[in-house]
């Protein structure tokens, strides 16, 4: 069994990863899609529902 200190560290790392995923997932997809798309769309078309 890992020690209490290691357990605490793992908890901290998982919590940090969860927060990063929560706030970073949508921006990550938009960044990947925006940079890899052919042709590259304009930013206003990406965000606005009407443009």
């Amino acid at each position, binding site marked *: 069994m890992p020690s209490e200190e290691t357990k605490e560290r793992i908890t901290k790392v998982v919590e940090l990863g969860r927060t990063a995923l929560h706030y970073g997932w949508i921006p990550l997809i938009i960044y990947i899609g925006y940079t*890899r798309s052919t042709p590259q769309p304009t930013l206003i078309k990406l965000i606005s529902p009407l443009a």
Partner: protein
Amino acid sequence: MASISSPPTDGFTDPSPSFSPSPQKPSLIPGIAPLTNVFSRFSQWRKSLDLPNPGSVENLQKEVKTTHLTNFIFDGARADLTKSLSMNPAFQVTHSFALGSQTAAPSYNFGAVFANSNVFLQGSVDHEGNVNARMNQGWTENCITKMQAQLSSQVGHNMIQLEHDYQGQDYSLNAKAVNPWPTDLTGIFIGSYFQSLTKNLAVGVESLYQRPTPEMAELSTSYLAKITSTDKNWIATAQVQPAGIVQATYWQKLSEKVEVAADLQLIAAPARRDAIATLGAKYDLRMATFRAQLDSTGKISALLEQRFAPTFAFLVSGEIDHLKNAAKVGVGVMIESSSLTPEEMGMPPQP
């Protein structure tokens, strides 16, 4: 001992005409040659049976679920605006608005999807900041790792599911872990194996191992069977769960445009005895899809999806609950716009 001293090609002097063994590579360890011979003869015999892949356990009732409208019905008003920004790789964003529902609060949802030949990324976020994430990574044609997560700022609403899926020649293997916690190995673990026995019949098992705390663990196994007709026009499935739940489904394609499906769910637990039967039909017309459904709790529902143009669809749904004297109505629009020209989308130019 005689079998070990015999030359490794001995296993292939079988005169059976149905096998055409490929020239065998010399084994690195001569001692295990009989074992590898047995294994390769077994796998050749298995290949010669030419059994189809049974499909995954998750998709056991896929045909029934797409014919029934349980997964498609909505009430209130909704609008989906989808914008395709690229075709290859696929990249699209969706804005969804919903309001006036009897059961759910008005909501706004933003979604983004990116997919190329082996990666699929999907994410959506609602106005309260809850994020749904999904990622599929294909390593080879039939070996896929999947990740699915629900992230919320509320405590206790987070979920992560890691999954690996392997589709063999005549079997499917799948392993899932829901909310695994590395330090004390708690979580829910699901493993399933599905094997074709004949060209029409496939059977499988699915085991669920629940370990909510390190002191508590529970294993339960359910059994599945699936019969597919030779021309794939009808499919019957059955699933038995240990708690006394039996689910049987039947799906049939009546013609190119009409599919019908029936679903029977029996609960025979000591505390509760219940049964629900559902009957549904789906019509695929040229510009419209119509689903109708009737179930034994007295509900009649229908959903019409009418396309007026390739980019504009109008949805009407309705449900009447005769026993509770209640009704639900929903209207929706789906608008797809694209910043691409028809040539960029890979379509032939319109005359």
